């Protein structure tokens, strides 16, 4: 059979049929919008939570890079940088610790950042001012300034007692930059310039473990990312093998546990998958039903089209084109609404779990794009799978059958002959028993929609703060000599 170019006329017919059936359009588009909203809201809430938990963990860990080499030399940095599997490589040079009397409650590390990205990678980039350039400049967190009782002002003189592997020196720096200190961080950062580092912590000539006793000053911390966070440990092993071959010469490594699967536990993932399946099932059943009803209503017109020579494939193409048009309208509306609803719901979750900083619990533009893309694909596939069977029914209708079509397979056998009063109830019951399969599908779709809405509400309203926190801490209160409050204190 020759391939013929008739897509245009099928498209035109599909479009015209749609235009003539506004009520049905509204129903289908609404169901597509609903499916899309549910999926988008779920994924954006899930994405925000995962992202937020990851950011929180990163702040506790003190860095956003996936892995790092500890106590290495500049040549190791060059080696890592040259490897094609790694990206975003940054380094910090260890100088020492600030041991002022005032710092009895906090630990202050003195380091030199390779560049702005290095400072950003451990959440210590100055938000006011800049990183130090001359030997007498320093950039510190506001917590350090507070401990020293100094104002948050550039140009302030900052006295520091520096401990470089046991050698104590006194310095007077000028504040060139500062940022909001992170209370959950293990230690506060104080940045000095490269020239200061070169003077007080010059680059050692031997590898870290080759020295006796061990000193830290002058060694580099090199942190980096991979293209994705999948199997970071495996990737790091492979990197070590590539760079060092025999592992005896390899440096210590650090894997950022914010990226490991523990941040998204099995229960959370399983819950997510179940939710997705429920959304799919609910969306499928609703859309399937509407398409099925529409096709039953239009069965004569499909028969007519068959009579005048429209093939089964052309009719199926027409129904699929209609489904695609519905998607083109419904999905964008669903995406926008889903993201907005997701945001509102996230704020409600944030209000419940108010120990966590809201800024972390948002999705980046890139992640949002991925969520939109996946949601759109998911909804599109749901629609296409939902209309597959109605499509087949429409395509396979015989012109003669279409003229006689009654929406039942007449396979339901009723035993006995009942003669009774005809009431609206009895007619309704008979209608339902005419096609049990259809009845089951309709009841299921209604049930699932309710289950879905109920689950969401129960989930959102049922977060038990005490249970949530008990998973994170071991005691009910903490006794310590510290002005930096613990994460949990505010809740008890």
């Amino acid at each position, binding site marked *: *059979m020759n391939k*013929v*170019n*008739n897509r*245009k*006329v*099928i498209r*035109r*017919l599909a479009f*015209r*049929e749609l*235009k*003539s059936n506004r009520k049905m359009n509204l129903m289908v588009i609404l169901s597509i919008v609903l499916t899309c909203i549910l999926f988008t809201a779920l994924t954006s809430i899930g994405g925000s939570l995962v992202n937020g938990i990851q950011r929180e963990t990163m702040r506790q860990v003190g860095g956003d890079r996936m892995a790092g080499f500890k106590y290495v030399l500049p040549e190791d940095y060059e080696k890592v940088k040259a490897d094609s599997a790694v990206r975003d490589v940054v380094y910090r040079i260890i100088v020492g610790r600030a041991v002022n009397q005032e710092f009895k409650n906090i630990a202050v590390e003195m380091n030199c950042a390779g560049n702005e990205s290095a400072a950003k990678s451990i959440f210590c980039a100055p938000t006011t001012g800049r990183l130090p350039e001359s030997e007498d400049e320093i950039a510190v967190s506001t917590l350090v300034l507070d401990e020293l009782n100094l104002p948050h002002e550039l140009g302030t003189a900052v006295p520091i007692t520096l401990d470089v592997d046991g050698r104590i020196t006194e310095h007077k720096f000028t504040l060139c930059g500062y940022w909001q200190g992170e209370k959950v961080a293990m230690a506060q950062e104080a940045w000095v310039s490269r020239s200061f580092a070169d003077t007080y912590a010059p680059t050692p000539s031997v590898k870290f473990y080759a020295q006796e006793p061990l000193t830290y000053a002058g060694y580099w911390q090199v942190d980096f990312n991979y293209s994705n966070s999948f199997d970071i440990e495996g990737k790091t092993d492979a990197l070590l093998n590539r760079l060092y071959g025999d592992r005896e010469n390899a440096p210590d490594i650090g894997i950022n546990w914010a990226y490991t699967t523990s941040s998204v536990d099995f229960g959370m993932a399983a819950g997510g998958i179940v939710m997705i399946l429920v959304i799919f099932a609910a969306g499928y059943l609703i859309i399937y039903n509407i398409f099925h009803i529409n096709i039953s209503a239009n069965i004569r*017109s499909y028969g*007519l*089209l*068959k*009579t*005048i*020579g*429209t*093939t*089964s*494939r*052309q009719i199926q193409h027409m129904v699929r084109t209609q489904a695609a048009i519905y998607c083109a309208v419904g999905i964008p509306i669903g995406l926008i609404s889903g993201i907005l609803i997701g945001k509102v719901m996230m704020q409600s979750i944030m209000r419940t779990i108010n120990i966590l900083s809201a800024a972390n619990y948002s999705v980046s533009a890139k992640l949002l794009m991925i969520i939109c893309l996946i949601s759109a694909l998911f909804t599109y596939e749901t629609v296409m799978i939902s209309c597959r069977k109605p499509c087949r029914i429409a395509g396979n209708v*015989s*012109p*003669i059958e279409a003229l006689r079509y009654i929406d039942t397979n007449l396979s339901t056998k009723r035993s006995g002959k009942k003669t009774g009063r005809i009431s609206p109830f009895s007619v309704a019951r008979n209608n339902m028993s005419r096609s049990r399969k259809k009845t089951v599908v309709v009841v299921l779709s209604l049930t699932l929609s309710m289950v879905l809405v109920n689950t969401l509400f129960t989930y959102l309203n049922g977060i038990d703060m005490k249970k949530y926190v008990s998973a994170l801490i071991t005691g009910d209160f903490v006794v310590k000599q510290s002005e930096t409050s613990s994460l949990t204190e505010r809740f008890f």
Partner: protein
Amino acid sequence: MKVLKTDALTKIYGEGENKVTALDNANLSVTQGEFVAIVGTSGSGKSTLLHMLGGLDRPTSGKVFVENQDIFSLKDEALTIFRRRKIGFVFQSFNLVPTLNVYENIVFPIQLDGNDIDAEFVGEVIRSLGLKNMQNRLPNQLSGGQQQRVAIARALAAKPAIILADEPTGNLDSRTSQDVLSLLKVTGQKFSQTIVMITHNEAIAQMADRIIRIEDGRIIKGGESDE
């Protein structure tokens, strides 16, 4: 040349006690350019016969040849395409696509086939049937007679081997019926079109070149052409 031929065409509905033989060993033939009327009372099997001739329904046994092609040897998809190319239909209930305008309805089977429209021929058909000024109207903006004229134009436009008309005047008043039938006959002659029309109305049947009579599923008179 025989355009249409049947060979012992039989259609049985149901089984056992409910068995109904709607068509019993029907043999007929129609030659090129002939205007044939199939006449029978209600329930005589004439509509079943027409459905078989047009490949809309499959027989229990027997064959239908259109231009020497055994149409039931074709699979459903191929049969639909064959129908689109070789058979034009005119139904009692017009069966126009309600969302397409007059012109689009007329050229729809041609476009379904992916063919270029023979604008001159289609224009001539439209003029012959007096549809020139209503090409942009939708079917629901036309009278019954006008809709049937559109259906005739649609059947003619694809230049089929045969046009099958199922009670084409069944939904029209007597005056309009006369007009439509005259047009069907005249345009059929003008475009050398073979037409098989089903009717229960003797007066209408008289306009045909030949009358085939059918009763209880059997062809009792006029089944074979003189050729």
